[in-house]
């Protein structure tokens, strides 16, 4: 049974090793799971998954594999407390409904149905209006089903028992493939820090050692210095206006939070695409601009250039002189970005649009080609991949 589960995990994209499987079997043999499925789930997770960003994936595979098995396990118990029987009844019910859910197809729909089922359960078991009043609106309305995460089974312990832990998908927020937001900003920040920092090693300061030893009347006096701190310089160009504002805010937060790790961090803004000038202060964008040529002269080639933008616009704005929506540009955006890329060989473009939509928007495709394929989605894993490219 576990071998099958093991391969299912591997097929699903997790990478548990044989040693880890053996460890799990060892733990099971030691009997601390106490024949409880919940405990088995906890142990399997602690043994096989070593990254909280993969908990959600694990939960999904676990749910798919062990659907219904816990009912069978419950039957094995000889001395069945009354509460267990009731619980089993709930589970039987859910099995039927789950079949329906499967027929409905689609995981989001499944989550939706699960939520409905939970509401139903409340009514059935709590009787009066006590629960419906609150559970019906506040938990599900407020934080029941929204991008912040599915928090089914928040209220009341009986509820908790009825829904299985892995079905609650509490680790969804930690999934590294979701869009960057305030929730996972910390993880993204760590990616950036990794980029900015290198291992701290001690070096022998030869000159100082000779000097101090001489002063010490020939007795050896060894002097060490910490290795020089990394000196990464970043030039950040952000697309502002319209749909981009939210993403820009997150990006700014992200980079400014990591700014102490960089030697220099400079921000500039553009609208839709880069042309002959950029600006630093969005409220005075029409007065205080820096010309792109000046920019490339001011910041040397050792800067790493990061664009953040959705690159979604009319293709004219990229390839034609005068294509800009805001002003008359003598030279096309494509020319200007090429100049910047010539100056900064290390550059990437971060795009908040979902990667799946890139191929359908001609301007994204063009920008991507201009960037030499160095366009990455604005997710934690996209950021990680992009940063790798900057090294």
């Amino acid at each position, binding site marked *: 049974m576990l071998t099958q589960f093991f391969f299912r995990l591997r097929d699903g994209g997790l990478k548990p090793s044989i040693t880890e499987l053996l460890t799990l079997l060892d733990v099971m043999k030691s009997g601390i799971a106490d024949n409880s499925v919940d405990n088995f789930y906890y142990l399997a997770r602690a*043994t096989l998954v070593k990254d909280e960003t993969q908990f959600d994936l694990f939960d999904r595979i676990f749910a798919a594999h062990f659907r219904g098995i816990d009912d069978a396990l419950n039957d094995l118990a000889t001395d069945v407390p009354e509460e267990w029987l009731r619980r089993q009844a709930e589970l039987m019910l859910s099995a039927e409904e789950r079949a329906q859910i499967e027929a409905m197809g689609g995981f989001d729909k499944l989550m939706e149905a699960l939520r409905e089922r939970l509401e139903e359960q409340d009514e059935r078991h709590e009787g009066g209006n006590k629960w419906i009043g609150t559970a019906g609106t506040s938990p599900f309305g407020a934080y029941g089903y929204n991008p912040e995460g599915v928090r089914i089974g928040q209220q009341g312990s009986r509820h908790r028992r009825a829904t299985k832990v892995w079905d609650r998908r509490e680790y969804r927020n930690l999934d590294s493939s979701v869009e960057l937001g305030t929730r996972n900003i910390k993880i993204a920040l760590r990616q950036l820090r990794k980029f900015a920092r290198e291992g701290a090693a001690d070096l022998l300061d030869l000159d100082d050692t000779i000097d101090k030893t001489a002063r010490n009347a020939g*007795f050896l006096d060894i002097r060490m210095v910490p290795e020089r701190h990394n000196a990464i310089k970043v030039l950040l160009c952000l697309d502002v206006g319209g749909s981009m504002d939210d993403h820009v805010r997150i990006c700014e937060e992200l980079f400014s939070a990591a700014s102490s790790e960089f030697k220099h961090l400079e921000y500039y803004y553009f609208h839709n695409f880069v042309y002959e000038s950029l600006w630093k202060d969005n409220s005075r964008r029409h007065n205080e601009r820096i010309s792109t040529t000046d920019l490339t002269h001011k910041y040397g080639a050792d800067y790493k250039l990061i664009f953040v933008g959705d690159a979604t616009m009319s293709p004219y704005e990229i390839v034609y002189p005068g294509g800009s929506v805001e002003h008359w540009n003598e030279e096309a955006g494509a020319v200007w970005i090429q100049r910047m890329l010539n100056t900064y060989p290390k550059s990437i473009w971060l795009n908040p649009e979902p990667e799946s939509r890139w191929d359908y928007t001609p301007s994204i495709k063009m920008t991507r080609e201009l960037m030499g394929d160095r366009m990455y989605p604005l997710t934690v894993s996209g950021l990680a991949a992009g940063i790798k490219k900057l090294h």
Partner: protein
Amino acid sequence: MSAQKFTGTSSYIVTDDLMMAVNAAVTLQRPILIKGEPGTGKTQLAIEVARSLDRPLHEWHIKSTTKAQQGLYEYDAVARLRDSQLGDPRVHDIANYIIRGNVWDAFDCDVPTVLLIDEIDKADIEFPNDLLRELDRMEFFVYETKQLIKARHRPIIIITSNNEKELPDAFLRRCFFHYIKFPDKKTMQKIVDVHFPGLKKALLKESLEAFYKVRDVPGLKKKPSTSELLDWIKLLLAEDIPPEALRENASGKALPPLYGALLKNEQDVHLFEKLIFLDRRSRSQ
């Protein structure tokens, strides 16, 4: 061995999943890696495990300059060199210059111990790799004295990480893993209960409400965590603030009293004030 089980202590609440993970590590005598938001009690866990299982605790706090070797032992070559120049007789025995590290101490103890390796992610990226054999076989070799140090009793090794660096696979495969997620209201109530047993129900309810409201504010740089909540309640008690005052504040009229314990970032305080202001304005309209 399996008779010993960790079920939390009078001052530390564990969730079921954490309990299972710790007990698995205790039973199989393998290291356990704990991750989670700062302030959710990762380091505290080791202290409480040691206390509840009645074992001595060895703490090894990792800094960015820490080397794996320092946990095992250090050979103080500089001191020996100095001694040789000064003609000290100690210089003839190299063992005089071997300084034991925390791991050695933990291995060499007469009774089973708990070893805490705190914030392993702070160290150099190669650090965990250098400890593979030590964690797996619980032994290491002292080259200078040609001595094999083997653990007399395999210690319970608890490793914490704040996720600043990714840890190598080979290292992870040797550990159990647990991610302490932020406690829900119910668990939090239990946690507060064990820390402030005599706390008035009303104050507890209101303070938790206010606390989760602050946590729910979008865009906070540093969300307050469990340890901050506990500090805050301590202050509330010390200042003898009535629960009614909290309710008024929780409904969005002003900052909660003594907010300095919850919000530790100036920008966060500003953001919070701004939101309260907007909220008040929308209500008055």
